């Protein structure tokens, strides 16, 4: 890990003071990553805490709405509207065009779900009830027609095909000992 702890690690190894891993972990944090003040915190109770939390998440105080404090563990994370990234303007020049998000924009709690490859909340072109009616109406109609077709089948106006040797008695697995009933066919 680059950064602050490298020298400490080197010193610890050289001195042989404690075992390697605990020396590495002691106070060694990379210079990259979030600073302490910008991590999520507990649920804001006072208006000052609310203002500070809104500033932290780059939201105005009016827009900032935390999740209800009912023990679910959201803390002061903002409750953003459940809209997928697919609903955002495709022509605007986003900083991250694939994610349709700008730098430092507050991320939804379920952001990874609302990416364009996954859950999409964009409105359907036709009302949902209309779509349901069309689909189930069509399927119901087809099933009804299949039933009618089974009840009243189509067939050619011909008699059944005639086969020799007593309707192929032996070929169809008939008992060779037993005498089958005589079936005669005539020309017409």
């Amino acid at each position: 890990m680059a950064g602050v702890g490298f020298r400490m690690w080197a010193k610890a190894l050289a001195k042989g003071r404690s075992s390697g891993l605990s020396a590495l972990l002691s106070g060694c944090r990379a210079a990259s990553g979030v600073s302490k003040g910008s991590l999520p915190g507990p649920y804001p109770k006072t208006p000052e805490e609310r203002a500070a939390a809104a500033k932290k998440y780059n939201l105005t105080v009016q827009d900032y709405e935390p999740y209800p404090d009912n023990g679910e563990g959201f803390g002061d994370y903002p409750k953003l509207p459940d809209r997928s990234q697919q609903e955002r303007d495709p022509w605007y020049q986003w900083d991250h065009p694939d994610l349709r998000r700008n730098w430092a924009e507050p991320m939804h709690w379920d952001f990874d779900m609302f990416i364009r490859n996954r859950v999409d909340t964009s409105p359907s072109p036709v009302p949902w009830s209309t779509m349901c009616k069309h689909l189930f109406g069509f399927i119901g109609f087809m099933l009804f027609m299949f039933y009618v077709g089974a009840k009243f089948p189509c067939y050619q106006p011909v008699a059944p095909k005639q086969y020799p040797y007593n309707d192929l008695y032996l070929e169809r697995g008939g008992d060779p000992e037993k005498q089958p009933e005589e079936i005669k066919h005539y020309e017409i």
Partner: protein
Amino acid sequence: MADFSISKHGAMGAHLVRRYITERDTEPDPAKKYEFDPNFGFGERKEREMIATQEQMNLAQLPLEQRDYCAHYLLKLMKCKRDYWPNFLACKHERHDWDYCEHQDYVMRMKEYERERRLQLRKKRIEEKAEAA
């Protein structure tokens, strides 16, 4: 009577209209066995002749649907095809013979259906006459 009052122009499927709508009780049902004696209305009726033997058909390993009264033509066709392979255009005459036999068989089936239908109509006429009397 229904036959004379409605138009008799039937295209393909007229038998279905008769069966399901107009003449539901007389049109022959393909699922049911034909009920009239085969010799009724005929003086002398010639039996159909089967030429290929069971042994021949077994040796040729014909599927059951092809073991009909035209099997001897089919056996000739199969032999011709085997003899003249790879010339797949060589057996036109044998194929035509088999096709013509199958065609005649189909026409016989159509005639049997029509015979059954007319006998049913006749039976109905007799019954109606008996009731009216």
